């Protein structure tokens, strides 16, 4: 019977209908944005992320040298590694390969953020697909998908990522896919439960009464209204992805050249020089912590802004 009514009637345009609008209310997302703007935690997080994103995008302009270049190759010996300010032209010193630490940190921002964003996007896409199928269709599809998710969840996520990366062979792509897949279960579960909680809502009943098809209801009503927790989780997952990527690189799953400019890799190779050149570990480590902190702050304030229960005056 759904063909009788034009889809626009029950479409997402309906809530914006001026006839329904009381003139005082704001949408959930606009409301959340207004709250975020006045939350110092959110501002700090956004500024951190903004800065690192800027550095990552402008890396070719900001970095004095290329990411994999070894400009100071002649200045290092097996026993001496020039530290910050000890050698002209390299403000943060050199690493054991002769790479400029400052340049590598800048290029590393690009590599680490890229890995974080792509792997989280993969996890989000995979998780949403499974979540929508499970939450939207229900029945045996739901059971099957949830059992699959249970299997993935039966192993700690980092170890799952490690096994997948080991299977795919050592490369940056393997790390992205591995972290992405290890994030699928959480997104799938979150979206499914969020959709299930919306199922009995009045507006769904209204849409059903209007005779809308199940697909339209799922995609235009259930999904948009269930996205809040998923978006919060995606922001928090970006932090985890950056940390996990470093961990996988640390376990030797990164592949490529050893001097590759990536924070996790820099930390890995700093291990042997910890006693003589601790800055080689501390600088990239601090970058990872600050980036992860930025995403966490942003994600948590977003959660607070979207969830009326945790809001504080």
């Amino acid at each position, binding site marked *: 019977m759904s063909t009788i009514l034009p889809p626009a009637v029950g479409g997402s345009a309906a809530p914006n209908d001026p006839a329904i609008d009381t003139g005082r209310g704001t949408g959930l997302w606009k409301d959340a944005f207004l709250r975020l703007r006045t939350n110092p935690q959110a501002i700090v997080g956004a500024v951190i992320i903004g800065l690192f994103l800027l550095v990552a995008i402008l890396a070719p302009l900001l970095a004095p040298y290329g990411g994999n270049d070894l400009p100071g190759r002649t200045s290092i010996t097996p026993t001496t590694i020039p530290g910050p300010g000890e050698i002209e032209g390299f403000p943060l010193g050199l690493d054991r390969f002769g790479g400029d630490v400052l340049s590598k940190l800048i290029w590393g921002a690009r590599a680490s953020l890229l890995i974080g964003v792509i792997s989280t996007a993969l996890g989000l896409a995979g998780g949403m697909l499974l979540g929508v199928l499970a939450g939207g269709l229900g029945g045996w599809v739901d059971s099957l998908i949830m059992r699959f998710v249970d*299997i993935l969840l039966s*192993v*700690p996520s980092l170890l799952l990522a490690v096994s997948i990366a080991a299977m795919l*062979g050592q490369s940056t792509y393997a790390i992205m896919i591995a972290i992405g897949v290890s994030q699928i279960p959480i997104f799938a579960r979150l979206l499914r439960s969020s959709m299930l909680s919306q199922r009995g809502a009045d507006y769904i009943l209204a849409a059903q009464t209007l005779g809308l098809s199940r697909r339209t209801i799922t995609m235009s009503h259930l999904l948009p209204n269930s996205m809040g927790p998923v978006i919060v989780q995606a922001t928090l997952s970006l932090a985890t992805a950056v940390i996990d990527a470093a*961990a996988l690189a*640390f*376990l030797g799953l990164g592949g490529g050249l050893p001097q590759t400019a990536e924070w996790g890799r820099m*930390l890995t190779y700093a291990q042997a020089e910890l006693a003589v050149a601790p800055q080689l570990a501390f600088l990239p480590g601090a970058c990872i*912590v600050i980036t992860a902190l930025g995403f966490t702050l942003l994600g948590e304030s977003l959660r607070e802004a979207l969830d009326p229960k945790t809001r504080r005056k």
Partner: protein
Amino acid sequence: MLRVIGKRIALLVPTLFGLSILLFLWVRSLPGGPATALLGEKATPEAIARVNELYGFDRPLIVQYLTYIGKLLQGDFGVSINTGRPVLEEFATRFPATLELTVIALIFSIGVGVPLGYLAARHYGRFLDHSSVVLSLVGITVPVFFLAFILKYLFAIQWSLLPPDGRQSPRIDATHYTQFYVLDGLLTGEYDAAWDAFLHLILPGLALGTIPLAIIVRITRASVLEVQNADYVRTARAKGLMERTIRGSFILRNAMLPVVTTIGLQLGLLISGAVLTETVFAFNGIGRFLRDAIFGLDYPVLQGFIIFIAVLYALINLIVDLSYSVIDPRVRVQ
């Protein structure tokens, strides 16, 4: 109670069954097939054919799977490619080290985390609260191996207060019955050996325990904040109960439920973290063995480890769920 346990274990079976299928297919999809993974990329076709025949890789997939699951059910996890010894035997000798480390980390994270979270909630909005919130935020975002680096640099290299690596000083000649070095030292009366083993556990334990600590602080704080203004707490105060009774039996006990769940969930984090921590501190446990297995693509070890962890993880979650009914009698009704 027994029926609940039985039901939960029955639910576990399909999950583990599915996991075993995934793991089985995983090895079969290794680049070049399992024989190449076993022999290396330069293996001759004859050698590959011989290995395929020896291990049955040339037989139909379903037959191979049934053989695999049959052996698995008998406790045969296969033989490690790197060491040539049975996987289960390798685990048995190394697992005590990891367990020892994990227990120390857990004691540290619960012992510090719960009181700190509780105090933060009681001093809500004041200095102690703010600093614990900031500390726990940093704790969550620090990669465990980076924290291990910092601790190792400061306490072992810079100030030489604690040993930088290993499980026990090589100069100590200790007897080991259980492979739990601290326990061994106490059992045999070699107290210096026990103390030395304990000193070796401090830095890795701190590194491993910090992230769970941060999470436990946050959850405890949030949970106590929610409970401490509940109606029944006000009633208890109005009845004139002692403050100590109110805090212990009313606030803390009711606030513990989410904390216990969180502690159970930390186990996965601890095991993953152990792999990284043991690598930094050259701590000879299951984590370091796993790292070598990753490098050597020692797939029987990886396969066995994942099954092992999945079972362990499920059992811990079962214990956590059962402990709810002890903490909160209302749960028992359902």
